[in-house]
């Protein structure tokens, strides 16, 4: 059975690029346009990994990661931050929040698939 990955990004085009890359790797994909939208989609579903942008309206990526880590069912779900931010202090902020990896846009689809394969829950 295919693993399900949630993509959280306010850019529709970026969500689509990520979705295409992941579907090419055999994953099922869910999409959310910001942190608040993503939290709504977590309930009642089994999500094996989350890929989230950092700078988003309503609820940014760091706040979203912190909120996810408070959820009992998603406490150990791996989260990859996908962002244009490449500053070390921002990365440390993501790590402190509970993210497992930091990917700087633009990413290579095969690199993203490799990162997902490394982190996705069994």
């Amino acid at each position, binding site marked *: 059975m295919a693993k399900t990955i949630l993509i959280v990004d306010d*850019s*529709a*085009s*970026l969500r*689509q*690029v990520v979705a*295409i*890359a992941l*579907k*090419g790797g055999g994953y099922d994909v869910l999409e959310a346009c910001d942190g608040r939208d993503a939290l709504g989609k977590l309930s009642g579903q089994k999500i094996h990994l989350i890929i989230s942008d*950092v*700078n988003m309206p309503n609820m940014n990526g760091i706040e979203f990661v912190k909120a996810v880590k408070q959820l009992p069912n998603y406490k150990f779900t791996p989260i990859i931050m996908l*962002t*244009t*931010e*490449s*500053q*070390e202090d921002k*990365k440390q902020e*993501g*790590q402190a929040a509970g*993210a*497992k*990896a*930091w*990917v*700087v*846009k*633009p*990413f*290579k*689809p*095969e*690199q993203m698939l490799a*990162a997902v394969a*490394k*982190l996705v829950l069994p």
Partner: protein
Amino acid sequence: MWSWGTTPLAVIGAAAVVWAPAGIASYAAAAVLVVVGLVLDQRAQALASGLTKAAMERLSATHQQELAALNQRHQSALAVLGSDVVPVWVRHIGTARKQLEGAVVNLTRDFAGIVDRLNDAVSASYRVAGVEQGASGEGLRQVVSNSERRLNLVGQILDTTLSEKQHMLEESQRLVQFTVELQKMAADVASIADQTNLLALNAAIEAARAGEAGRGFAVVADEVRTLSTRSGAIGKNISQKIDAVNRSIKDSSDLIEAAATRDSQARIDCETQLSGVVNEFQQAMQGLTQSADVLRTESAAITSAVSGALEQLQFQDRINQLLMHVTDSLMNLRDQLASGQSPDVAAITRLLEKLERSYTMTEERSASASGIPGIPGGGQGSADDITFF
């Protein structure tokens, strides 16, 4: 009171140059700003130069009115810039962002469609060729294999028929052997009949010599002679029938032999035809397999190219963020101009510092570093990397 010596419009113009790379609309607007700033600054500098306090006191009322009017025009221009021009820039940038995002979404969807259709075509070609790993056996290879097996079965049926005809031919030849024996037996019968007839003739002669006493024996001898004559006729008749049977058998044998020869040639022709058909099938299958291989190779190359395109398309997201930062900064400029306070270098610097703080990308920092002196900038961090925690 407005101070011309600080040349704030030149500062705004230079700031606009920093924003300009964000888009054509911004670039055109920036050019207008620079020109307006330069013209106004030149007039202000010309008026201010050489005017000492004492000289100012000696200015005629006409000159003071001219300076006040110029100042008023300048402030009005700034107010219009904030209330009318900046919102237009923001709307243009917003339109550009929306159109760019829509185009990239469509482009990405099209690329995904190409890859999906290509994968479907490759799978279909391998299914047809029957060479896909784990294929269900419905492909051409399986069809060729089945056809070859069935065609070989036809050959085996022909072989069986041919064998049966050969057997019939052998049986016919054995019948000919029997008829030869029968012919000999018929000849023996005729010979015995002749001897019996001769014997009966002698008996009749001896009976005649015996006179009255041999009369009865003469009757017997006559009957024996009659029987031997009939036996001889039957023997001859048998011999004739055997000859007729022999001819029929020979005719049948000739027919069977001719048919067997034709069947044997037909078997050879059939085998040649079947072999040709199977070879054509195999060549067709080989061609299809090669086509499928070429298609797969091309598909892999196209998929790789599309993967590269997907990476490039992400720059739309980066450009979108850059335009958002420029838009936010333009809105800050509008608010600054709408406050009614005349902007100075410090205010403009704060504006740029706020813009700088919103940067997330190396390109933005690099662009800012080449902007106004005194504003910290420079690229940090690196794109295209993955950090695992």
